[in-house]
């Protein structure tokens, strides 16, 4: 082989490695849905809000503890299910990228929690007060975000685009119908927060159980009073939450629903039948709230794939997408100055718990 040919071989080897690298990095595929494109779509839907989370932007920190009753050890070896008390940092929020959105009865409420286990492990989870999720794949989520972009002419989403999205995604149309049929509770305190995505619980003997979990409130359900909507402040849901917690701690039961074979674990738009076995594994107590600007939750990313040994993700495609997108959001906002949040905790009145 001549020297020239050998140089060409060297060039070819380097070119192949470089092209492979570029391909894996996504630089050659304009269509690949990346975390960056997903976050760009959030910003297209509600405008850029530097410093804030790109979704569930409006929120309030909360702290408390989880009293595990030991029942969960039957299903999972995770240290969180051993009997005992675990410190919890949480965040109540509204879905959506607008950090100054007005609270409304139909706003999707969320509760994110971080359990700090004694062996240094953590469990982080984000739950929503809706019975199912409106989409079942990250691609559909992205399309829904684009469909809900405000039309520059009207300032509102184009109903034609949304109708077209629902036509392409009948599973989302069904899910939205189910979500819409649920009556809204009067506030955060009596909301049921559902994990929506399925997870694998791994027992000490290696047995795997597919589950979904929920935080079910001790506080009794009362329906949102739809009659009087004029007098509500922009933060009425959060203000009521702050006042409730100052009056007395709020409690939820962590209920684990066990799938039977055939129940879909990779489709968050489909609810599991109501007769599935549910296990009460412990009680969450929220006894303090703090505004985000100084609260402990401000710099926490409630990544659903931060899991202790004994809990693993299922094949639900939303889990990796959430983790990847949240990582992108926290990376962006970590470098941005954050303006004050919409919800601030007022000073304590006489008679209220500090």
């Amino acid at each position: 082989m001549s020297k020239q040919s050998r140089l060409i071989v060297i060039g070819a080897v380097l070119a192949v490695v470089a092209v492979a690298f570029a391909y894996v990095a996504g630089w050659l595929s304009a269509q690949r849905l990346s975390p960056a494109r997903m976050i760009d779509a959030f910003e297209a839907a509600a405008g850029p809000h530097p410093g804030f989370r790109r979704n569930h932007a409006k929120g309030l920190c909360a702290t408390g503890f989880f009293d595990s009753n030991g029942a969960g050890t039957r299903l999972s070896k995770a240290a969180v299910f051993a009997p005992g008390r675990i410190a919890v940092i949480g965040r109540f929020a509204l879905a959506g990228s607008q950090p100054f959105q007005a609270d409304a009865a139909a706003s999707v409420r969320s509760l994110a929690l971080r359990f700090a286990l004694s062996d240094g492990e953590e469990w982080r989870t984000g739950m929503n007060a809706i019975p199912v999720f409106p989409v079942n794949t990250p691609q559909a989520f992205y399309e829904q975000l684009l469909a809900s972009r405000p039309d520059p002419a009207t300032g509102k989403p184009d109903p034609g685009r949304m109708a077209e999205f629902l036509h392409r995604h009948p599973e989302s149309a069904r899910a939205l119908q189910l979500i819409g049929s649920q009556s809204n509770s009067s506030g955060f305190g009596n909301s049921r927060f559902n994990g929506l995505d399925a997870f694998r619980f791994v027992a000490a003997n290696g047995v795997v159980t597919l589950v979904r979990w929920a935080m079910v409130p001790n506080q009794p359900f009362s329906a949102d009073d739809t009659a009087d909507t004029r007098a509500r402040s922009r933060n009425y849901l959060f203000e009521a939450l702050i006042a409730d917690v100052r009056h007395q701690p709020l409690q939820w039961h962590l209920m684990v629903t066990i799938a039977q074979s055939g129940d879909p674990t990779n489709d968050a738009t489909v609810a599991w039948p109501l007769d599935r076995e549910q296990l009460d594994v412990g009680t969450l107590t929220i006894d303090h709230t703090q505004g985000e600007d100084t609260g402990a939750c401000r710099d926490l990313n409630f990544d659903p794939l931060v899991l202790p040994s004994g809990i693993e993700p299922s094949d639900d495609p939303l889990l990796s997408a959430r983790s990847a997108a949240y990582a992108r959001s926290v990376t962006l906002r970590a470098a941005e100055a954050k303006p004050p949040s919409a919800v601030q905790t007022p000073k304590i009145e006489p008679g209220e718990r500090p």
Partner: protein
Amino acid sequence: MAAMVLSMLFIGVGMVSTVSGRYHGLIAIHRPLGIAILVLVVIRLINRLLHPGPPLPAHLNALERFAAKASQVLLYALMILMPLIGWAMLSAAGYPIVLAGAVHLPAILPHDPALYALLRRAHTLLAYTLFATFMAHLGAALVHALIYRDGVFTSMAPWRSRRT
């Protein structure tokens, strides 16, 4: 080690470009593989300081000698810095640093978002630098193997020629 480092670079750029199920698997490999490389590089560096490698061939000029030495220093520096920055970055982000199951590393920095932002950017920048250095290293190694044929490649390759 070259295979491990190259894998890490591909896993790294791949995992941050996807929202598919691959994300979870890739990131779960990325952390323990990174720490494994850190341990191996430290051992390798100690070995290299105790047993210096073979001398460079006589036909190289001063610039080529400098490039050879500098690229090796750069590679060692990046191979040590990258996993350390990854570990530091996760510490500053306040994440638990899980290697496998319940095995996790302690945080080496306090929880500080601004520090996390800086380290996260550094991790990406140095990753590209490491890839570029690797490519230059690979190119030079192939030149020594196919053009100069001066024994330098055989001294690097894992398969030793017993006849020298």
